[in-house]
């Protein structure tokens, strides 16, 4: 783990417990997961029990303990998307990427996860790559992923 990078994240915040969540968010963003060492260091920095840090880290789905891809793919399983075939979309993505939900490709480029409503129901079924939104993309998946792979 890059200790300097962690130090740079921590020093922005005062040593107050209320900054636990934003710190964890920054760590997740920088390292694409929460390295154990970083959690221990955060607990020490904030003088909060490690148990509390672990509790918060395991509570939110936005955090992960294994590295997510550089381009996380989120497939919406919300009501609108569900009705419009989100599960088929997910299956197709899994097949195209040769990847199952919760996993990351071996080159570390993509990871696949499901979320509940991305707030773009009019485009259902929706998925995002990083923060690019793709709606009603049936039949265009291979093409979209090809472009994403190269960019």
């Amino acid at each position, binding site marked *: 783990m890059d200790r300097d990078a962690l130090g740079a994240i921590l020093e922005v915040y005062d040593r107050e417990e209320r900054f636990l969540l934003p710190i964890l968010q920054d760590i997740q963003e920088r390292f694409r997961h929460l390295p*154990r060492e970083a*959690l221990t260091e955060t*607990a020490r920095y904030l003088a909060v*029990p*490690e*148990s*509390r*840090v*672990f*509790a918060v880290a*395991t*509570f939110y789905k936005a955090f992960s303990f294994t590295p997510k891809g550089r381009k996380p793919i989120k497939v919406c399983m919300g009501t609108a998307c569900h009705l419009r075939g989100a599960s088929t979309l997910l299956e197709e993505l899994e097949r195209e990427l040769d990847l199952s939900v919760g996993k990351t490709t071996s080159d570390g480029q993509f990871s696949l996860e499901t979320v509940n409503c991305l707030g773009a129901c009019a485009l259902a079924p929706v998925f995002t790559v990083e923060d690019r939104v793709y709606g009603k993309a049936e039949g265009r998946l291979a093409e979209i992923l090809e472009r994403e792979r190269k960019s």
Partner: protein
Amino acid sequence: MITLIINGLKVTVPEGTTILEAARRLDVEIPTLCHHEGLSPQGSCRLCMVEIEQRGRRRLVASCMFPVAEGLVVETETETVAGARRFVLGLLRDRCPRSEEIAALAARYGAKPFGRLPLGERDLCIHCDRCVRACEEEATGCIAFSFRGWARRVEGPFGEAPADCIGCGACAQVCPTGFIAVEEEGGMRKIWGKSFELLRCSACGKPFATREELVFQGLDEGDLLCDRCRKREFAASFTRGVR
């Protein structure tokens, strides 16, 4: 001071008292699970529900959290209250079918398991958070609830034996269902996957506390007195010379 009425009885208590505390003063019994006198209130089990009437409106509140108010009218045994308790206990019967404590409470209120929760591995934990609060407030805060939903469980960080545990056993002491395992044998205490050597009381010789506990409390190993002997000494210090 604030005067309120509980089950038709008047009681006057200081501001900030909870309904539960006021009721106990009147010897009115209200069942509780997540509440513990020595710990900050949490209000999560909803077993202590009572009915209150305020400005002409009746509603259910958690008596362990609700502060008394002037002229408040409280009923602790109405049909609505009994229904709320039966509901909570029914769910707990589903959650912890093996708990004798829950079974006894359920029998008292005529609560039956709903049988609707997915079956599977069931432990004795009712998620009342008493152990976590005890550890946080009395010791090092080495355990907490991690994960969420069905996976939610109390454990040390990273699901391992908690490095900061001092073996005081406060968590096990406040656990209402006996979920937290603590074993004492041959002068050792085993808890949370760790083993602690027990030090002996210098008066009665009973093994009673871990070294880590003493260090945490900033006590000396010199005057090692177990709770009972300490109380005896304390009482003796008053009567000394009087007798």
